[in-house]
């Protein structure tokens, strides 16, 4: 996902537009400026007038004072449904628990990119949302002041009312709408200083909790439409395979099964084939799928196995310099001259996203248009992909967002919505295609397994050179990425202040391809890079006979890093720990936030390693909700425990070997150590928080195990039950 592209787009979108439709509601939204801008705005207003005011805006206030806010991004657990409302309610001066919040459709002309990835929602939109909300408030104040014939600054807004200070007279917002829509919004609005916030900065009760405790929340898989059919698809278990032939007779015998036919799933630029079974219930479709007999065509691509993948990584890492991404100084020269050097390889596994809600999607194909409902992270990408593949006008691909039962990057792919569209087209009815857990586990896309060669030299207790090479699949290759270019994410996770203090550093990528589909997985390449780079820092500290946190303090000279390290020391009692007491540290940067982990381990009662405690210190700059941040970090640690110590996806003869949670096991309640989260307070720009809590956990854990046992773990996942046993 291109975060920089998105940031650029958002910076161009700083125009406020206000539209009053028929005087019935005050609607505020943000529209793209620039070349296509005028057209876009007109179009949006025309649509709004003809189809209802909700289409026009982000904030809608009607004449009875009801306030509706749009959540333009995917709510997949990370809390934007609540925190967007929290931002708007603050500057709009309304009760957070009195507003309606609506999930929406894909429409980047109104909302900018809706790709919910790269931990980008808050950091990408908070400034605009604050300004938009303050503008709405100011216009309402202006309308009230004009009615009373007083100056605007003689009035203020509070919980959905404008109040005249001197007299105490008040109007509720609804009473002001008819006047407000006629006013030109002020060009500049004053935003509150952080110290004045009443709603932002509070870990208040999430708006989406009650509906998630009584079954009311509608996830993609829960969406129902009149006449909805259900489908399951038997896809070629080899990840580029096709269908040679199939025998539908047994499947059609299953009560409820109505139709069986071949269907294609597009994985970006490649196709995979399967056979769809349509039925009147999910279960009948799944039973029909079991009964179906298919002969696969597995020709034309390699049937790779895990052992081959990693031996090829090693070969590449030993034999090639790769494509340089970043180089400063002369690390190769320095290392070759050094008497105190390290040269090691780290390996990380393929991983499945395994959202609790398996992949699913509803499509209703209607000739020149298609409507989609589902748990999707990237509605605009679905519009792009489906319109291109189906030859439809982009605006005729309507994508409705539901709640997501987890996303983690998986649900940013347009493959499953496209497949649902094809099934709907074939049967001429709305259909929900549900992936079984087995489909979800075996079909991918997966986080690529990546190997690293890390070389470095130390002298007089300091680092003189670092040289990193990475071999692993590049997610961009799935979208036609250029083979001749290095993976831009090769240095993701590595802390930028190191470039100021370590003179010789290089990163290089060794392009590596397989037929296995890969994609973003929570924190993307930082999730694997972080393990290699921050484990290696620990190795160098040991080599240089330095305290690993001190070493980082020496090289992370900027003020924010120094304060972060102070905090880490303070909360974990780092300085008072005893030698080889089982403490490990790691710090990574991810999506504009820096997160440091300290992990404390001990020998388990029955052997192996026990995690006693995890301390996490987060510097994400300006933030909205400390409790949601804490929850995101807790969840990231749990996910990282799984990826580091419990599960991996392996391949044999071109097929995934895992099937379900019995062989792709998950951390469970008894596996979770206490996790203490601290958030740095500062006025810096906002960073992401849905993912950055993840990457530093694994290296902090293995560094702790090294501290306790002297055993260095360089391959994930490892078994905690045996860890540290053999030296």
């Amino acid at each position, binding site marked *: 996902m291109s975060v920089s592209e998105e940031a650029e787009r958002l910076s161009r979108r700083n125009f406020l537009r206000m539209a009053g439709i028929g005087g019935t509601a005050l609607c505020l939204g943000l529209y793209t400026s620039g070349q296509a801008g005028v057209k876009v705005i007109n179009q949006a207003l025309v649509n709004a007038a003809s189809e209802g005011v909700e289409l026009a805006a982000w904030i809608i206030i009607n004449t009875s004072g009801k306030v509706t806010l749009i959540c333009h991004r995917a709510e997949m657990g990370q809390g934007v449904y609540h925190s967007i409302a929290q931002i708007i309610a603050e500057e709009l001066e309304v009760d957070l628990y009195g507003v309606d919040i609506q999930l929406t459709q894909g429409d980047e002309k109104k909302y900018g990119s809706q790709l919910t990835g790269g931990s980008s929602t808050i950091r990408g939109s908070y400034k605009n949302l604050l300004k938009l909300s303050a503008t709405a408030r100011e216009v309402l104040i202006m309308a009230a002041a004009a009615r009373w014939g007083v100056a605007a600054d003689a009035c203020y807004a509070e919980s959905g009312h404008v109040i005249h200070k001197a007299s105490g007279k008040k109007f509720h917002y609804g009473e002001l709408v008819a006047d407000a829509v006629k006013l030109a919004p002020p060009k500049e609005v004053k935003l509150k200083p952080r110290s004045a916030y009443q709603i932002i900065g509070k870990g208040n009760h999430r708006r989406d*909790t009650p509906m998630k405790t*009584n079954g009311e929340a509608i996830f993609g898989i829960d969406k129902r439409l009149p006449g909805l059919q259900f489908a399951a698809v038997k896809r070629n278990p080899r990840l580029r395979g096709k269908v040679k032939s199939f025998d539908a007779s047994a499947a059609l015998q299953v009560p409820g099964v109505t139709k069986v036919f071949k269907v294609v799933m597009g994985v970006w630029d490649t196709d995979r084939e399967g056979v769809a079974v349509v039925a009147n219930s999910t279960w009948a479709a799944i039973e029909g799928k079991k009964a179906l007999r298919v002969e696969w065509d597995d020709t034309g691509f390699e049937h790779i196995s895990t052992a081959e993948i990693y031996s090829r990584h090693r070969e590449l890492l030993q034999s090639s310099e790769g494509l340089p991404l970043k180089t400063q100084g002369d690390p190769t020269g320095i290392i070759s001259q050094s008497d105190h050097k390290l040269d090691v390889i780290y390996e990380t596994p393929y991983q499945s996203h395994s959202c609790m809600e398996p992949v699913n999607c509803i499509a209703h194909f209607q000739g020149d248009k298609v409507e989609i409902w589902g748990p999707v992270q990237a509605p605009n990408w679905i519009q792009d992909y489906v319109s291109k593949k189906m030859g439809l006008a982009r605006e005729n691909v309507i994508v409705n967002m539901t709640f997501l039962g987890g996303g983690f990057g998986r649900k940013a792919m347009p493959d499953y919505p496209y497949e649902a569209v094809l099934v709907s087209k074939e049967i001429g009815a709305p259909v929900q295609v549900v992936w079984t857990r087995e489909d979800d586990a075996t079909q991918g896309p997966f986080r690529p397994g990546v190997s690293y060669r890390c070389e470095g030299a130390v002298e007089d207790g300091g680092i003189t050179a670092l040289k990193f090479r990475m071999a692993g699949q590049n997610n961009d290759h799935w979208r036609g990425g250029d083979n001749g270019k290095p993976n831009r994410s090769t240095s993701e996770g590595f802390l930028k202040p190191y470039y100021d203090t370590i003179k010789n550093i290089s990163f290089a990528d060794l392009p590596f391809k397989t037929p296995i589909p890969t994609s973003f997985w929570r924190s993307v390449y930082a999730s694997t890079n972080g393990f290699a780079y921050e484990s290696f820092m620990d190795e160098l500290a040991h080599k240089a006979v330095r305290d690993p946190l001190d070493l980082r303090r020496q090289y992370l000279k900027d003020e924010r890093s120094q304060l972060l390290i102070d905090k880490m020391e303070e909360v974990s009692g780092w300085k008072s720990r005893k030698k080889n007491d089982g403490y490990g540290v790691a710090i990574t940067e991810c999506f504009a936030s820096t997160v440091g982990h300290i992990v404390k381990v001990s020998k388990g009662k029955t052997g192996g390693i026990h995690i006693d405690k995890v301390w996490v210190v987060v510097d994400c700059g300006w933030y909205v909700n400390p409790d949601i941040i804490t929850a995101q970090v807790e969840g990231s640690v749990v996910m990282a425990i799984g990826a580091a110590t419990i599960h991996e996806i392996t391949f044999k003869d071109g097929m995934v070997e895992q099937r379900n949670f019995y062989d792709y096991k998950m951390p469970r309640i008894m596996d979770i150590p206490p996790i203490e989260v601290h958030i740095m307070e500062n006025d810096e720009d906002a960073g992401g928080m849905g993912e950055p809590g993840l990457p530093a956990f694994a290296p902090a854990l293995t560094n702790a195990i090294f501290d306790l046992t002297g055993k260095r773990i360089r391959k994930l996942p490892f078994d905690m039950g045996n860890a540290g046993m053999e030296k």
Partner: protein
Amino acid sequence: MINLNVNHKVYQVDADPNMPLLWVIRDLIGLTGTKYGCGVAQCGACVVHLNGEAVRSCVTKVSRAEGQQVTTIEGLSAQNNHPLQVAWNEENVPQCGYCHSGQIMSAAVLLREKADPTDQDIDDAMAGNLCRCGTYLRIRKAIHLAAELQKKEGGSV
């Protein structure tokens, strides 16, 4: 036709007796609060109560539920005010929320049987419920809180 009593309402469903209760509840009766997560008794997303006992509806044939009392998350309380529901809100437990119908239904049986569960009791009772978002620490906290609330109410669950 199979007669089912779900949340004190009687339904007649035209289902294969082998059809798992999960899919009868979701696709035929239309109560979608009960979730599909694995289909093989591994994740607990589908937990409902059968005569008050927690069962995994993905591996419970509908024929087994005939004439019995089935309770789903929608029927746990009238006002979303079961002590667990209150505690879940208080502790901001859910992230994506997908696993929590099952989490709460499992915890409800625990709380009925052990008014004051220990951490070990919670581990034992909740080990069958996965949460990919990693809300486990809050689940533990919220169960302890719900136990407190239940005591204060003096009522039974």
